[in-house]
């Protein structure tokens, strides 16, 4: 407080009076206004008590000067007479109060009040500054902040909160949470957490909320209890952080990580990280799969060179790589962890550190075994095609030569009397020609230069007959398991040729298990043409394929054998134990009906032959039979084999009669109406032997032409029949429908 007066007495009294009762007030005395003003700028004076009893007008400039410097200054003037207009002017001009000497006693309570006011004002100013700070903080926070009371009502919210709801503060304050967020959200996502907070816990949780302004957002919500000094919790502070972007970026990171993981796990490219000496540090799952390794630890620390089949090759690759930084090595033969040989396309990349020194080598391994297998298969097919063309041409020329020999032999036989040694010798020539003819026929079948006579045939039936045929003649140690579809499956083929295919594959299987007992598993299923597109490696010609597999537990084959198995005259058997044509003929027959045969085999692990044949669509079996109305009499030793042949002939329109024994045969030919047009005699027939047939014919009981079907190894008994002159046509097994058709037609001349 400053006391300004020219009257030292008044000043002394005032100072004394005020100082006694208000000891916390510091009083500085100035004897003139000028001396006060000269000091004022620096001073921190709250109250200025100025004596203006002299009626001068200086008070105005004095007051203005003071208020200019500090507008909060409280100026109290002491004047002679309060009632005058001057006092009013003083108040108007900004003085705090005006006192007269008479009312000077009021000075003490006035100062009391002033000081209280000053304190309040200072407090208020402080508080308002504080409030402004907290508002700044609260409103500029990116989180929604609110104070909630126990009735779940908002008492305070920040600007962010209002923005999020795009409404003003006044529309939120006093509203309940369920009004703002909706009843359902409040009940399901908020209420229980608030209750928990009012029990004194800081509650933190994440949830997504729908906001009118920003739509569905993810929030992290924290409820902090606001505890009073009494320990009572009346309110809580709710902080709601928008973590949507965080969530999204987290999701992106997660997705990327997941994607990478998927790529790493599912990409069929083996990845390997090695040190610069080629020692494995890390491998991905594709590598483990390609290389048939158990897990990563089983190969960690191994050198890649240990997988190479060719010693020293990796070292060459490594030096090439160190020079080139990045290099692809083409197909490399590798051993898998299981010791199997595979081919991989390998690429290597040098990974360098900051100082450009190689620190790692990354390798990519692509399994090219399938590619190699397909190429190989194509190569085999081309080879077979070439051999086929060569063999076919040869067979063609050979048939010309055979025709010449046959013709002259017959002329010779015509010229010399029967039953002479010379005639017998010529018969032997003719029998040999039949054998040669059978051979050229097989070669032509292999080279697909013989048209098969195709008819709709139930492949299931033919397969069952073939199995029956095989079972009738095998050793009991060999078990044949059947897993055959129990329905008719029609394909377009020659049944006798199918029989030949199945017979051949099963005979091979048996021979592969010759030394010991074993099992042949025959399966027949129908598969979707589309699903086998990759396996077949050739055009798919039907919606469905019948798949017949023959699996044996025999000795198996080396890959080098498998590669050549369909080549003619390629045989693993001893010379003379098979023609070496069997599988090549099988291949030819299957190719001709647009099927495919595949082999998989491992040495000492058995073999599987898979035959795919296109199922004929539309007509299912018995379509209209051609009316040939010729009666054929079958004399056969094996019912299965003759069944297949008769299957073929029946569908071609012939009427078939069977004679299983001599009595039935004699009875048949004694009835006029039943006399057959042709007799088909298979020389494995034990009930009716060649001699019986010759006897019956020599007695002129019958003169129907005989077609003899003989086995290569039973030619001796066949010769007798040929010699006797009753045989019109001689066919050597296996006989195709076309052959027997031709034989029948020629015999009927």
């Amino acid at each position, binding site marked *: 407080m400053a006391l300004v007066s020219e009257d030292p007495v008044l000043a002394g009294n005032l100072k004394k009076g005020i100082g006694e009762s208000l000891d916390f007030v510091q009083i500085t005395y100035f004897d003139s206004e000028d001396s006060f003003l000269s000091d004022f700028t620096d001073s921190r004076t709250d109250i200025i008590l100025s004596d203006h009893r002299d009626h001068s007008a200086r008070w105005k400039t004095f007051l203005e000067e003071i208020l200019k410097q500090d507008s909060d200054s409280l100026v109290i003037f002491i004047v002679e007479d309060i009632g005058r207009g001057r006092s009013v002017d003083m108040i108007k001009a900004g003085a705090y109060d005006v006192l007269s000497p008479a009312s000077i006693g009021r000075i003490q309570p006035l100062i009391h009040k002033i000081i209280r006011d000053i304190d309040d004002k200072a407090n208020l100013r402080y508080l308002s500054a504080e409030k402004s700070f907290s508002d700044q903080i609260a409103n500029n926070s990116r989180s929604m902040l609110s104070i909630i009371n126990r009735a779940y009502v908002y008492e305070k919210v920040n600007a962010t909160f209002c923005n999020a709801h795009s409404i003003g503060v006044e529309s939120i304050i006093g509203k309940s949470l369920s009004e703002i967020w909706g009843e359902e959200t409040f009940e399901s996502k908020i209420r229980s957490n608030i209750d928990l907070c009012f029990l004194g816990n800081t509650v933190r949780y994440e949830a997504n909320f729908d906001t009118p302004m920003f739509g569905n957002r993810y929030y992290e919500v924290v409820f902090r209890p606001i505890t009073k000094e009494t320990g009572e919790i009346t309110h809580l502070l709710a902080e709601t952080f928008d973590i949507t972007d965080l969530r999204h970026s987290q999701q992106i990171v997660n997705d990327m990580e997941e994607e990478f993981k998927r790529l790493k796990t599912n990409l069929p490219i083996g990845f390997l990280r090695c040190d610069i000496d080629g020692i494995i540090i890390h491998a991905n799952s594709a590598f483990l799969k390609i290389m048939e390794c158990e897990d990563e630890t089983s190969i960690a620390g191994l050198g890649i060179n240990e997988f190479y089949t060719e010693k020293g090759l990796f070292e060459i690759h490594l030096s090439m790589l160190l020079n080139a930084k990045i290099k692809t090595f083409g197909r490399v033969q590798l051993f898998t962890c299981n010791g199997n040989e595979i081919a991989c396309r390998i690429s290597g990349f040098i990974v360098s550190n900051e100082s450009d020194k190689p620190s790692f080598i990354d390798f990519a391994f692509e399994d090219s075994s399938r590619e190699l297998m397909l190429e190989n298969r194509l190569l085999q097919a081309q080879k077979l095609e070439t051999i086929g063309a060569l063999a076919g*041409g040869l067979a063609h020329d050979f048939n010309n030569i055979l025709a010449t020999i046959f013709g002259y032999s017959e*002329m010779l036989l015509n010229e010399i009397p029967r039953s002479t040694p010379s005639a017998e010798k010529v018969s032997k020539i003719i029998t040999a020609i039949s054998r040669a003819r059978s051979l*050229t026929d097989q070669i032509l079948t292999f080279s697909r230069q013989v048209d*098969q006579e195709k008819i709709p045939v139930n492949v299931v039936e033919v397969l069952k007959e073939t199995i029956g045929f095989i079972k009738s003649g095998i050793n009991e140690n060999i078990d044949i398991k059947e897993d055959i579809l129990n329905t008719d499956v029609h394909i377009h083929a020659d049944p006798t040729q199918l029989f030949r295919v199945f017979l051949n594959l099963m005979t091979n299987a048996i021979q592969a298990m010759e030394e010991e007992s074993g099992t042949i598993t025959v399966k027949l299923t129908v598969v979707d043409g589309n699903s086998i597109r990759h396996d077949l490696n050739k055009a798919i010609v039907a919606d469905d394929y019948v798949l017949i597999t023959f699996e044996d537990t025999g000795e198996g084959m080396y890959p080098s054998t498998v590669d050549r198995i369909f080549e003619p005259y390629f045989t693993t058997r001893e010379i003379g134990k098979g023609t070496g044509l069997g599988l090549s003929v099988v291949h030819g027959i299957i190719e001709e009906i647009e099927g495919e045969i595949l082999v998989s085999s491992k040495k000492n692990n058995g073999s599987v032959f898979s035959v795919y044949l296109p199922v004929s669509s539309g007509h299912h079996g018995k379509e209209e039979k051609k009316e040939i109305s010729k009666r054929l009499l079958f004399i056969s030793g094996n019912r299965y084999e003759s069944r297949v042949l008769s299957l073929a002939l029946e569908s071609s329109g012939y009427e078939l009669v069977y004679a299983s024994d001599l009595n039935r045969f004699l009875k048949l030919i004694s009835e006029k109406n039943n006399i057959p047009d042709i007799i088909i005699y298979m020389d494995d027939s034990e009930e009716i032997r060649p001699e019986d047939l010759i006897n019956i014919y020599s007695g002129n009981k019958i003169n129907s032409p005989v077609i003899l079907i003989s086995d290569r190894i039973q030619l001796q008994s066949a010769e007798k029949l040929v010699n006797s002159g009753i045989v019109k046509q001689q066919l050597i097994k296996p006989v195709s429908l076309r052959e027997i058709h031709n034989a029948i037609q020629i015999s009927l001349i």
Partner: protein
Amino acid sequence: MAGILIVEDDKDLREMLKISLLMRKYTVLEASDGKEALLKFRPGVTDMVITDLIMPDEDGLKVIMKIKEIKPSIKIIAISGGGKAGPGNYLNLAKALGADEIFPKPFSINEMIKKIDELLNAEQRD
């Protein structure tokens, strides 16, 4: 006696056929391929053509077609021994084109002669 034209590129086989036909007193003409066959064919004296199907130059099927065109009453026997496109197929095609009989090689000459006699005797009876 009836005249027969043998069209066959294999010389030995042609010779064998010729001998056996001459033994049956037929008049025999020979051609080693389709072109020559068309040159040697004389509608007036040739009653039958025995032709191989697969030959260099003009093949047997063309021979059959052209000769049938010139002389529809001609008798034709087709023979084939496989190779290139499948004899079964060719022989059936030959039959469709008008061959009276087909014989796959190697065939029985006795049966062929029998058939020839039959075909030509029927001709004579007409």
